[in-house]
C-alpha cells in the first residue's frame, strides 16, 4: 500500500508542476499577445494609472527657479 502511494504522490506532484508550468505558459502567451484586446486593455489601464500617478506626484516643477549653485 505504501509502495502504491509513492508513485501516486509522485504523479500528483508531476501533474501539479505541469499544471503550474501550463498556467505560467498561458500567462506568458497572454502577456505577449499584442492582438489580444483584453491584454491590451489591461496594459493600457496600467499605463493610465501610472500616468495619473506621475501627473499627481512628479509635475510640481518650478521652471523659473534659479539654477542650483555648485
Amino acid at each position, binding site marked *: 500500500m505504501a509502495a502504491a502511494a509513492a508513485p501516486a504522490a509522485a504523479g500528483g506532484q508531476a501533474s501539479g508542476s505541469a499544471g503550474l508550468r501550463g498556467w505560467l505558459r498561458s500567462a506568458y502567451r497572454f502577456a505577449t499577445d499584442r492582438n489580444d*484586446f483584453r491584454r*491590451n*486593455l489591461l*496594459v*493600457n*489601464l496600467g*499605463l*493610465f494609472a501610472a*500616468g*495619473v500617478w*506621475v*501627473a*499627481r506626484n512628479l*509635475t*510640481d*516643477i*518650478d*521652471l*523659473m527657479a534659479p539654477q542650483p549653485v555648485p
Partner: protein
Amino acid sequence: MGNVLGPAAPRAPRRGEPLGSPGSFDELHRQCKEVFPQQMEGVKLIINKTLSSHFQVTHTVHMSTLGPSSYRFNATFVGDRQLSPTEAFPTLVGDMDNSGSLNAQVLHLLAERLRIKAVFQTHQAKFVTWQFDGEYRGDDCTATLTLGNPDLLGESVILVAHFLQSITSRLVLGGEMVYHRRPGEEGAILTLAGKYTAQKWVATLNVGYGGAHASYYHRANEQVQVGVELEANTRLQDTTFAFGYQLNLPQANMVFRGEPGAAGATRQPWRWPDPHCAPHPTPAGLLDSNWSVGGVLEKKLPPLPVTLALGAFLNHWKNRFHCGFSVIVG
C-alpha cells in the same frame, strides 16, 4: 441672562450652494484634449485680419510634405450678444479650401437658455454633413438634441440626445443616446458619462456598449499642465493610451490662450476664436501607446504680431518621422 432652555431664535433659511451649469457634453474631455499638441507637418502660414469688431478673415497656406498643398479662406462674423469672452451670438463661420470644399457653421441664441447650431460640410460640390443642434442650458443641467444628416427621401437619420446634470458643485453625471436609422437597419447606443472637478484636477469617464473613454487633467502649477487619456473601442477591438504635458512660460512670451474665466470675474473683452492655432502655449509633449512621441513649441515674437510654432512627431513602431513649422500673423 435669558432663557437658555427656551427655543432658539429661528435661523434664516440656508441658501443652497449654486451647482453651476455642467456645460456641453462635447466639452467633457476638452481640458485634457487641449493639453495634447496637434500634429504638424510641412510649412504653414496663417494670416489673421480683423476687419471690424464683428468680422474677421483668415488666410492659410499649407505647403505639405505628405499630400497636396492647399489654401484655405476663413471668414467669421459675430453679433452683438456676448455671453462670455469666448461666446457671442449670432456667430457665422465659413471655411473654404482651394478645391471648393466648404465647412460652415451657424450658432444662434434663440432665448436666454436655448441655443441652436447648424453645421454644413461639403466635399467639393457634394454635401457630406448637414447637422442641426438644439441645446437647452439650465442652471444645473444641459440637454441637447442633434439631428445628423436627416434624409426624408432616403429614410435615414442619426439622432443624438445628451443630458448632463450637476449633482454637486464638483460632480456632473449624464448620458448620451445615439440612434441611427437606414433602410434595412436601425440601432441605438447608450453611453453614461461622469465628470469630477477638483481644485487642481479634473477626471472624466464615458462608458457605454461601444467602449470607454477616460481622461485625467492635472494643473500642477501656473506653468505645468498634464493630461492622461485612455480610449477603448469594443467594436474595433482597439485601445489607446496617451500622456501629454504643457509648459507655460509667460516670462518668455509663451502666452496661454483659451483659458476660461473664473466665475464672478469682471467682464472681459470678447476674443476672436482662433480656427487654426491650437490654444496651448508651448512647449507641449505627447507620448502614446502607438509608440509615438512628439512635441510642439510656440513662441511669440514681440514686438511683431507674429507667433512661430515648431513641431516634430516620431512613430517608433512604424519608423516614421515628420516635422513642420508654422508662422501665425495677427
